[in-house]
């Protein structure tokens, strides 16, 4: 694959261009949090005390009544959310056309951050050499790996036979500083106008750059989000995640793309106009969801973001429950941190209405929705165990399963995915989503309490072939 070549090894100093965020006073922050939650609680207690004497119901009936009202509201929001997403996703698919833009082949730098990816990095770079695009280079950033990633990556440096021409592969070897810092180092080193940021364990489909760069002919587009698919299928949790990526994430992304406001450019594949990243102040290390944070910053600067379903990145999904919880815990806390970081935009729609809208939907998806789902399930368990309404839970499950089944069928058909995944929709909401929502709720509570967390590293099995 690689000819005998001389490799130049040089020492470089990489400025870390992360936007400087003023550190908040911790004591002040918690005091404010206690004051806000205390005030809300007092208002609620005051309303209850004021309303209770005026009702003709006793306390038990009041609780039952309130629960039923809450449940009806939950059902209404659930259906509204589903149909709104389905409608927008449908409009997006109708609008989506593949029209190649002749003569537009900008130079693209692919940044591959790697931390302890010795088992997957070679396969990942191999997939990048097979891209159906000529004008690109690969920059691997070894973020202080403790395994043999450095040796593997070093052996990959040079000019390689690509699909259309020879592709330059470079390596930056830096001390460990996190994914955001690694990506920033790669972006700083790049001379390209467009950068593709991905994960070290991801593999790209051959046409992923070609189909995505054409959107940059529109000067308003600052970034293009790709389509993430699960590579290691065949196990219960990975198959459920494969369905979740199609039904939960991609459908929502399609809907957001119709209004050009994709809220999260996924870590495994995202193309950015370099000046959009520079304007946004690069990736930040102050949240655990650096992709969500950067996306919000790019949107806040007035750029539009599009979703390209044919720009596919295959990624390794966690196979064990513990690994899955670790990933979701980080995602949830990262998203909450990003929302909090941009709260000014959330409460002031005059700055950027698109960002305000996106932030509220993120807030709803990350905080309100999981709490509502758990509360609804608890209600049916209690209704069955203490009031004998066992059949309620069946109809609840049947309704949701039917909704998921129809959505899964639609999404599988649109993405031309494996049909067998549709079957998982029967246990998707009552089993998989419930576990995820419990994790989300716990993470939210921990974030609220300010419990310290670390990035953690998911174990990779090194799936060879896409």
């Amino acid at each position, binding site marked *: 694959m690689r000819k005998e070549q001389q490799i*130049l090894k040089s020492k470089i100093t990489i400025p870390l261009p992360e936007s400087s965020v003023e550190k908040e006073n911790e004591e002040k922050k918690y005091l404010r949090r206690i004051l806000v939650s205390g005030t809300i609680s007092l208002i609620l207690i005051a309303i209850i005390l004021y309303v209770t004497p005026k009702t003709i119901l006793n306390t038990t009936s009041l609780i039952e009544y309130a629960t039923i009202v809450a449940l009806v509201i939950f059902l209404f929001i659930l259906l509204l959310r589903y149909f709104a997403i389905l409608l927008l996703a449908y409009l997006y698919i109708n609008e989506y056309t593949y029209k190649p833009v002749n003569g537009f082949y900008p130079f693209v730098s692919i940044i591959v951050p790697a931390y302890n990816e010795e088992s997957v990095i070679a396969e990942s770079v191999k997939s990048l050499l097979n891209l159906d695009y000529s004008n690109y280079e690969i920059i691997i950033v070894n973020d202080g790996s403790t395994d043999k990633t450095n040796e593997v990556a070093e052996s990959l*440096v040079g000019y390689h036979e690509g699909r259309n021409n020879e592709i330059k592969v470079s*390596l930056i070897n830096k001390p460990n500083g996190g994914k955001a810092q690694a990506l920033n180092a790669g972006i700083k080193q790049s001379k390209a106008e467009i950068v593709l940021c991905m994960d070290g364990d991801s593999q790209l489909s051959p046409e992923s750059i070609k189909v995505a760069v054409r959107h*940059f002919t529109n000067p308003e587009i600052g970034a293009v989000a790709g389509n993430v698919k699960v590579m290691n299928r065949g196990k219960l949790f990975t198959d459920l995640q494969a369905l979740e990526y199609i039904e939960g994430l991609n459908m929502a992304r399609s809907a957001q793309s119709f209004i050009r406001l994709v809220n999260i450019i996924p870590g495994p594949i995202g193309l950015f106009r370099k000046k959009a990243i520079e304007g946004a102040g690069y990736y930040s290390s102050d949240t655990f969801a650096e992709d969500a944070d950067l996306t919000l910053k790019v949107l806040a600067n007035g750029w539009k973001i599009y979703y390209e379903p044919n720009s596919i990145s295959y990624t390794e999904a966690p196979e064990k429950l513990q690994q899955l919880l670790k990933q979701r815990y980080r995602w949830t806390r990262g998203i909450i941190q990003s929302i909090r970081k941009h709260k000014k935009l959330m409460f002031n729609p005059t700055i950027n209405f698109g960002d305000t809208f996106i932030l509220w939907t993120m807030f709803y998806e990350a905080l309100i929705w999981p709490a509502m789902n758990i509360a609804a399930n608890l209600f049916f368990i209690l209704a069955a165990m203490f009031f004998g309404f*066992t059949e309620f839970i069946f109809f609840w499950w049947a309704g949701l399963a039917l909704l998921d089944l129809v959505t899964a069928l639609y999404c599988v058909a649109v993405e031309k995915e494996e049909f067998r995944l549709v079957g998982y929709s029967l246990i998707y909401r*009552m089993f998989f989503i419930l576990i995820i929502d419990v994790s989300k709720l716990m993470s939210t509570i921990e974030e609220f309490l300010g419990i310290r967390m670390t990035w953690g590293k998911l174990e990779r099995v090194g799936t060879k072939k896409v």
Partner: protein
Amino acid sequence: MELIPILSTIILVATISTFILAIGAYILYKTRESKGQQVIASQPKSVEAELYTPVIERKVQGKPAPDYVQTPFSTGYKSREPIFAQERSQVQTKATPQFQRYSGEKKTEPVNLREKTYKGQVAPIEKEKKLKDSKFLKYTSEGYVDPKTDKSTGALKWR
């Protein structure tokens, strides 16, 4: 026994089990994580790194492309591969053959548009454009041609 009560019981048990599983797994995860808790280091302003690059600089890196490059022809052939892609022509690629002057000796028919273009001939789209401009056309065994072009071949003509 009816089916719905059985299914309801199964779902009830499954939901309760899922709750227990989710909470249990979460507690287990937190217990394991707390053992390996690290202190987050503050971010420095710059970092020393090593850069490994291949020595020979080739023309792989193109110049930063303009925001939008106009297509050379706008004759309705939008769905085809670009014939004279501006950015590609600057890049020395494996797929780009060496320029060769057209010699009339070779009689082999070009396979596709791209080959035809590479061999120095006038692109069919260009030809079409020229034909549109000329007022009179002559019908030959090769179809409609410009009379000027036909004369320039130097062949004897029947009068």
